[in-house]
């Protein structure tokens, strides 16, 4: 009896994991609202973390190393998230030294296609101009 019970525990855990990974969230403003950490730099509290903060009023902020690098507006169009944003002259100079020659504020329009939407994480393929990038996002507590 006890043996059967003990054997059932790992099975239950495995089944729970299986079903939780299948759960799919719907793309709507309520789902996106909040802070999401972007994959490459670890968890929400990491020092080098990249964040997207979707505010309920339609504005958003891209935050990197605890500084805002881009601010703008977000909206959902069909199954895409459209991000219209502006960066300051100081943005990204640490990423590309060449950008130090570049002055002025810049305006971007980016489209991101969410994939594999789970309750607390999803992946997205973002495109801007000819460039694309896939990343995953994790909801911050």
């Amino acid at each position: 009896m006890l043996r059967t019970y003990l054997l059932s525990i790992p099975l239950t855990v495995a089944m729970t994991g299986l079903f939780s990974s299948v759960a799919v969230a719907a793309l709507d403003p309520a789902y996106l609202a909040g802070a999401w950490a972007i994959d490459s730099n670890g968890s929400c509290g990491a020092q080098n973390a990249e964040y997207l903060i979707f505010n309920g009023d339609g504005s958003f902020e891209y935050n990197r190393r605890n500084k805002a690098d881009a601010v703008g507006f977000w909206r959902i169009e069909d199954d895409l998230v459209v991000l219209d944003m502006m960066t300051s002259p100081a943005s990204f100079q640490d990423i590309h030294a060449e950008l130090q020659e570049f002055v002025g504020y810049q305006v971007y329009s980016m489209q991101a296609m969410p994939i594999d939407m789970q309750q607390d994480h999803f992946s997205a393929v973002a495109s801007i101009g000819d460039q694309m990038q896939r990343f995953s996002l994790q909801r911050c507590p």
Partner: protein
Amino acid sequence: MKTPRDQSNVLRALPAGLLAAGILVAGYAPPAASHSDSAAYAFGGLLAGHLLTDMRFRQQQEARENQQQTQALNAMAYGGGGQRHIAAPHAPPAAAPMTPEQKLNQLDKLAAGGYITPAEYKARRQAILDSM
């Protein structure tokens, strides 16, 4: 056991050894450090890459405009009445809703580029077809 003479030889050889080590160290060229840190930031790297491309494009455009202005001024100075070309200001592309055909095309590109898995491609394609 080392004699004082042996130790002396070692000490004499020491500067030469240090010199050789110094030459080796000086001759070693570490891999060129990349000034680009775009790989460290997924979202920021994408934006920075686009900005860099845009910056280079604008520099080329500015150079072309300067050349055209110079040609126009030369034409005016030496006859011919050349027209000055003024480039339209740069504007961000307008975001228009995509048609299902455009979505399918985009999906094909994503799959071809390896940005989505075959299973994701199949699911997304079916969703687009269902919406038509």
